[in-house]
């Protein structure tokens, strides 16, 4: 697998170097210039690489070893005695299982719905409308806001007494509901708020994808007699695979980081009942309960979750020559 990947990346490097006149053989450079170019490139990428490498990979490694200890309370962790006890503990812990379930539910519901809303809005914006820039800017605005800010707005929107959501539902005779206080409603409410914040992002990505499709294809489909709906369904949407993949990866990563939003709903490490996810549980275990090793194990599992999503994506991007 590793050899294959290396060979693949090697091919990729060379493909990028094929010259304008088409067939010129231009494979990797051999020794002389390589070492020269390598040496002179060091001052540029090595310092950022060391800083980033220590901060990201060094810390993950440290965290991993910490997760193998039994460290809790204020004592120094004992690195001599390593085992996977904390991982076993997690899967026996109903709080962890609940948080894991909520994490998945949030991840899937948020990502899928965000993509759907983003795609629909992108198609609408792509109809050659006037003031396109203004519409686009407005739709993307929530994304520029902090989770902390949007949490405040939605707390008020979901308020039981005078929240706008309940007022609107009241018009059709529903509610009022206790959106944040009701454990069976809160996750849905959170997902809805997050869709409000990030569907604009999905729209921007889809819009770029739509713009990359040559106009001739829209015209050809029309000449072939396809209706607008069928044209999108059969000709355009299949070509948005790349946009879908990159948008969903970024959205999933946002969802994994939803800690800030949930924290701000209550202003504490205890999110509303029914909305605890791994991200909030980890921080709580680490900095409230002082179960460092346990928290580290949850952090590593979150990392593994991100890896499962991101690794295939990076590979896909390489294959498409995007990176």
């Amino acid at each position, binding site marked *: 697998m590793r050899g294959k990947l290396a060979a693949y990346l090697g091919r990729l490097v060379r493909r990028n170097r094929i010259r304008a006149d088409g067939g010129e053989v231009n494979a990797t450079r051999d020794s002389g210039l390589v070492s020269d170019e390598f040496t002179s490139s*060091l001052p540029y990428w090595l310092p950022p690489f060391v800083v*980033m*490498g220590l901060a990201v990979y060094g810390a993950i490694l440290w965290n991993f070893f910490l997760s193998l200890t039994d460290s809790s309370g204020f004592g120094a962790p004992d690195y001599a005695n390593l085992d996977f006890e904390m991982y076993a503990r997690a899967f026996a812990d109903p709080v962890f299982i609940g948080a894991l379930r909520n994490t998945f539910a949030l991840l899937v519901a948020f990502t899928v719905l965000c993509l759907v809303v983003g795609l629909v809005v992108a198609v609408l914006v792509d109809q050659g409308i006037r003031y396109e820039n203004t519409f686009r800017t407005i739709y993307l605005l929530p994304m520029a806001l902090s989770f902390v800010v949007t949490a405040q707005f939605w707390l008020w929107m979901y308020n039981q007494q005078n929240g706008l959501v309940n007022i609107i539902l009241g018009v059709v005779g529903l509610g009022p509901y206790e959106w944040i206080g009701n454990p069976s409603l809160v996750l849905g409410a959170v997902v809805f708020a997050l869709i409000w914040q990030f569907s604009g992002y999905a729209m921007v990505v889809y819009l770029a994808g739509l713009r990359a499709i040559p106009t001739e294809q829209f015209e050809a489909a029309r000449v072939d007699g396809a209706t607008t709906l069928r044209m999108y369904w059969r000709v355009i949407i299949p070509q948005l695979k790349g946009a879908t993949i990159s948008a969903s990866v970024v959205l999933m990563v946002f969802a994994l980081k939803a800690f800030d939003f949930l924290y701000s709903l209550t202003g504490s490490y205890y999110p509303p009942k029914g909305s605890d996810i791994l991200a909030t549980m980890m921080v709580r275990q680490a900095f409230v309960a002082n179960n460092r090793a346990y928290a580290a194990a949850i952090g590593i599992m979150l990392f593994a979750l991100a890896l499962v999503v991101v690794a295939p994506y990076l590979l896909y991007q390489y294959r498409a020559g995007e990176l």
Partner: protein
Amino acid sequence: MTDTNTSSGRSWRSTALYAVLVLLVVFYLLPLWTGLMTSIKADVLATAPFLPPAPAGFTNIHWTRAINALAGGLVNSLILAIPATILSALLGSMAAYGLTTLDWRHQVPILMLFIAGIFIPYQAVLIPLSKFWASVVPVSDLVGYVGLAGWVGDLIGLILSHVAYGIPICTLLFRTYYKDFNGEMIEAARIDGATTHTIYRRIILPLSVPMFAVTLIYQFTQVWNDLLFALVLVGPGAGAPVTVPLSQLGASLSEVGFGIRMAGAFVAALPTIIVYVLFGDQFAEGVST
């Protein structure tokens, strides 16, 4: 089918299209509008939340209180976000230059490590990070030797953390940009006698100005908006960036507190909203890369 039919069909469709687009504008702006109206009402429960206050019900008390409560945080956030943003953009541009324009074997795996760094959930590095600044390099103690308060040290640690974790995304943004540079232009410079260093200084950096705008704006927003690092590395107190006090604002006051909460949300979001309104296109470019 006659021409009139088609054109009336078209105009009906176009009307429907714009109606939907405007409804979407309402959807995306309503929480903000509601918040704005609530922030200037004396009694937030008096009328429907999206209605402006009656002339007698108008107040600026929520805004005054929010500004008072958040002023320190705003200053801290500026001290935090500006250097962190500039440093990560600069380091990202350097890394991208060394890994893109300068072309050598095996740079792709290195680049992959950079890019994977974008997607790391911070929970996976949070404990080591806080331990690092607490015991390995205890900045809050170190600044004591030069007569500064501990929270200044915390803030420095927070700045450097944001720099480190901002490098991957900045590298990717610049990488995408540099990849499209004309390779022959760099070769021409080399034949013209330029060294690696002068190529960076005299060709790459001047040509990077638009990408610096994109990266700075995107990264500024990210750092400004962060809560998790701020909470863990600085916590509430003198050095806290604005997101920390905002998350606590009015929480003890239940419904009555929403006036100050909404005003606070706007106060804290103002810099990012201004940046967004002025440079929305660059922000869009940053997120879509």
